């Protein structure tokens, strides 16, 4: 990858990592690191802030990311999400880019139904409902998406169903995806993306990272995204190898 351009910054993009302490497992922090580095490499200034339960919500963020967590972590953030639900919903409907992985993806849905049948309401930004399961869906994943093939690793016990007309994030070529049966993975509404993919998802799939950064750059500067040409040879090779290996294509 090229060095960070020395020329004048094209603008400041504020990335908000929601609940970095409670909801950042299995390397999800790597998504935040990836965004920060790529924003800089595209010639913008990156400002990364963490939002913790109880703190004032950073409404001025241009890009929001959230990860997976232990069940206990999820419980810790539910109150805070509920308190800020209206702000987050209006940011989402206003076109703010968001990437929510695993546990946070579930919390952005309509509800999580526990194994015991209790219904825990979510933000309802994505029209999905998750049913707690005894069986975990674990393993490497390959998807077909709007940014091409995407690789990652899933590890979830919740089984998610899309509401009528809800667009998925991708189609499963290898792995379980939302529920292991309908070949959908994740969900997308406007600029809000939900997915089960760890890996973490962004470093090996820079097309998705740049899609989010582009949307955030426009929000931050009011101008169209002005990307630098980045060489992603290593990421492309890492992803290509996983795709060929998992889909059984001879390399």
């Amino acid at each position, binding site marked *: 990858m090229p060095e960070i351009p020395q020329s004048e910054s094209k603008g400041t993009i504020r990335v908000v990592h929601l609940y970095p302490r409670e909801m950042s497992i*299995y390397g999800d922090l790597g998504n935040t690191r990836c965004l920060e580095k790529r924003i800089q490499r595209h010639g913008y200034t990156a400002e990364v802030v963490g939002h913790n339960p109880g703190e004032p919500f950073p409404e001025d963020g241009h890009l929001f990311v959230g990860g997976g967590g232990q069940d206990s972590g999820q419980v810790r953030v539910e109150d805070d999400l509920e308190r800020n639900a209206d702000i987050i919903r209006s940011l989402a409907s206003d076109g703010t880019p968001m990437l929510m992985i695993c546990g946070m993806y579930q919390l952005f849905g309509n509800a999580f139904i526990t194994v015991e049948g209790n219904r825990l309401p979510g933000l309802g930004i994505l029209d999905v409902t998750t049913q707690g399961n005894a069986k975990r869906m674990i393993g490497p994943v390959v998807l077909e998406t709007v940014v091409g093939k995407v690789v990652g690793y899933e590890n979830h016990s919740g089984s998610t169903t899309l509401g009528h007309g809800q667009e998925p994030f991708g189609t499963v070529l290898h792995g379980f995806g939302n529920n292991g049966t309908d070949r959908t993975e994740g969900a997308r509404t406007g600029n809000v993306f939900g997915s089960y993919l760890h890996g973490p998802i962004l470093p090996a799939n820079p097309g998705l990272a740049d899609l989010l950064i582009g949307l955030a750059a426009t929000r931050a500067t009011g101008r169209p995204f002005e990307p630098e040409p980045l060489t992603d040879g290593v990421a492309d090779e890492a992803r290509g190898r996983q795709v060929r290996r998992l889909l059984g294509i001879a390399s």
Partner: protein
Amino acid sequence: MLRTTAAVIAGKAARAASRVRGGGGSAFPGLVAERVDPRFLEHALADVREGVVVVTGTNGKTTTTRMLVALLRAHGKRVLTNPTGSNFTRGVISSMLKDLPLSGRARADIAVLELDEAHALKFAEVVAPSHALLLNVARDQLDRFAEIDHTARLLERLAGQATEGVVLNIDDPYVARSREVIPEGVTVRYFGLDASIAHRLPEILETDVRFAEEYAPPESGDGAGFLRPRDEREFDIVVPGGEDIGPVALQQRGLAAMINATAATTTARMVLGDAFSPGTAARALAQVRPPFGRGEVVDVDGQPLELVLVKNPAGFTVALSTYGSEPVATMIAINDDYADGRDVSWLYDVSFESLRGRGVAMTSGIRAYDMALRLQYDDVPVDAIEPALVPALDRFISAHRDEPKRLFCTYTAMMSLRRTLAARYDLPEFGEEAADA
């Protein structure tokens, strides 16, 4: 009794047969013995009167078990252990069979058994341990346990099973919080870091988010031991209200090894009581050789090549801070087979910034490109990427022939690279050692 003898004979026969077929520390002989006598383990340990100690936790089991065995033997005890690291009950039986008399009753004073978290509980259902040493809970082998909260629950249940004493890591909230389930009459002792190096805690511990309030360590109480390092392999164990132990000099470098030694020593003091001697302990620890892959050094054409096993974020971070302090030519080999952990996401929970100055000469293994990508995001230069392990090793060695080298690898990458190195250089034989460090 007759049944046990029959089980010993059947087990020994199975062991001989599996050795002929070239099997190492397989669980098969144990399975055979257990078939013939379902209460085999209980019988085998019936004459072990001074204690059955279970060592468990995510990181450091193998090293700590070795150290504890050495400490007890140095105090004149006959110790039964599972040195091949077959850390599940059938594996324990298999490893015992070689030395077991036909009576099926082991002739030992104390048993020290390394067991992983799930198998420690299974073992405790058959034989109640007198003592349990709980080292830590870290993210690892996610395919098996899925969540660290779950692992913590396993350890907590084990802590409740010990009949005489439990030794807990006071710095690890997942471990220390299990004191609440320990029944009255069972002694609880703690080991941990001295205040002088408490700042290193964040890099080796997971954050416990199960509770809203910050973790506050309990009173350390009697018999605790705290690690105070002098340098990378020399340290003292501070004993509040008692005689400090040290200086102790280990053969193995690094904070992790010193913490393991502190845990082992605290446990040995508890088991031995008044018979414990600080001088004997320091001499015993100085003799312990590092287990396979934990800083083992291979002489490659007159230059040292250090082999370092990495398998989870806490372990890799500690390894980097131990070994990264002296920059040498570095290769990293990452596989993602079952024994390695199939998810490589954890590489993003490790900071590689300490390698930035010197760079990494080679990344290899099935996920060589993912490793190189990870390093790019920490601005660590990578000279070469070669997924095939042996060609990568050859290129690495020939490009850095006249200098010290270091090789970080995941478990299966380590197994295969060590095999290659053993065939070329003079390496001690090793059995089938455990994936658990």
